[in-house]
């Protein structure tokens, strides 16, 4: 799995590409926790853009769960957007779409994680 991080003001958009499986999940989790650990500038939100994310297993869900908790501890908004149908199905069946906000696309994720600036 490849990971690209785009900075949009004080929002980090994380764009994973490929498969978030048992093999890839620990690296993904570490990347998100590094981002949320806040060595850099203050962060308002982390948005994971699922445009190129093809597959998520329970190991990937675990990484999202731990990242969402780390975000909550750091007072950073955490949301997903633009999930492909197979990935969205996994989020819905697991109930994760109830505990992590999932937006249709990046624009609505940006608008809703920073309502003051929309």
């Amino acid at each position, binding site marked *: 799995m490849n990971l690209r991080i785009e900075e949009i003001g004080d929002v980090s958009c994380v764009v994973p590409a490929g498969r978030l*499986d048992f093999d890839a999940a620990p690296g993904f989790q570490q990347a998100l926790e590094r981002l949320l650990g806040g060595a850099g500038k203050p962060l308002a939100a982390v948005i994971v853009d699922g445009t190129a994310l093809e597959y998520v297993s329970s*190991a990937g869900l675990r990484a999202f769960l731990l990242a*969402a908790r780390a975000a909550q501890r750091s007072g950073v908004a955490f949301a997903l957007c633009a999930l492909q149908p197979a990935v969205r*199905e996994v989020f819905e*069946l697991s109930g994760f779409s*109830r*505990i*992590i906000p999932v937006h249709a696309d990046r624009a609505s994720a940006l608008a809703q994680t920073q309502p003051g600036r929309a």
Partner: protein
Amino acid sequence: MAVALDAAQLSTFELALEEIFMNIVMHGSRPGIAPRVEVSLHRDAESITMTVEDDGPAFDPLSLPPPDVTASLADRRVGGLGVFLVRKMMDSVSYERIAGRNQLRMSKRLDG
């Protein structure tokens, strides 16, 4: 015989295989001993069936309690989630212990 799957079916079976295989590795391995795992796919007129067999200790993944999918972010657990997803995505899942082997059969209807 090769079995052709469309994208949605492939995604379902890939997920099932990863979840069940990792369960076997985690529940069935002992120091120095790894279970031997065999996977087969069968397609008939109505459905596709994947069978995963291993020679590890008896373990019925269907006996795992289902996760509480309504729990809050703080209380949410991940244990049991893989098998839960498999049961949700497949039309039928059954477990048998046969001749010292665990056998899990997972079927999905072709029209679903």
